[in-house]
């Protein structure tokens, strides 16, 4: 029983760690503010969700599990809210998203300059 729980914990924490690092790499590599928000949402949902789930398996049926699930529920509701507020503020300030045609132009110019 304990070995099964340990395997489940390892699996959940490994998946969570993978998504944390992928989200963080995405925040560096993307060229546009709004694309970076997509990458940051990976950290909030899959990263935190999977790691908290793995910790719940280790804690068993105690009060600690309830608190971890409370953290998960709270971040589940507030992460889209803060993303939405940030998008509204940045659109009102005039930071426009890069549409697909501009992205293709920029990529073509970059490859012509380097190639």
């Amino acid at each position, binding site marked *: 029983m304990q070995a099964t729980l*340990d395997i489940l*914990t*390892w699996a959940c*924490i*490994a998946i*969570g*760690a*993978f998504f*944390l*690092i992928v*989200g*963080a*790499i995405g*925040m*560096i590599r993307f060229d546009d*503010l709004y694309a*970076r*928000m997509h990458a*940051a949402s990976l*950290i*909030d949902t899959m*990263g*935190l969700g999977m*790691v*908290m789930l*793995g*910790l719940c398996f*280790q*804690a068993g049926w*105690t009060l*600690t599990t309830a*608190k*971890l699930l*409370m*953290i998960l529920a*709270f*971040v589940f509701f*507030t*992460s889209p*809210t*803060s993303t*939405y*507020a*940030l998008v*509204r*503020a*940045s659109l*009102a*300030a005039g*930071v426009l998203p890069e549409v697909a045609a501009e992205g293709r132009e920029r990529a073509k110019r970059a490859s012509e300059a380097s190639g």
Partner: protein
Amino acid sequence: MFIAASAAVLVAMFLVLVRACLGPTVYDRILAVNSIGTLVVILIAVFGFLSGRPEFTDLALIYALMNFIGTIAVTKYVRFNDMGAGEGHEEQGDI
């Protein structure tokens, strides 16, 4: 396993910190600080299990609340140059 999770969170925190330093606009920096706050919540919870004291989950919950409020407050200040209600924005709200 907790050490592996802590190492992954620290690596992610460092990468997001690079974006907080680089980001050309202020909104990139707000986004990066929000993500660092969420990573801190994960780190506190994992460290609580690592040190054998599950009471750290209380701290993680409090920090999750404070992180959200802080992000909304900074976004509101950058948008309106004012932390109060502002004039003329009642019909559309702040957020």
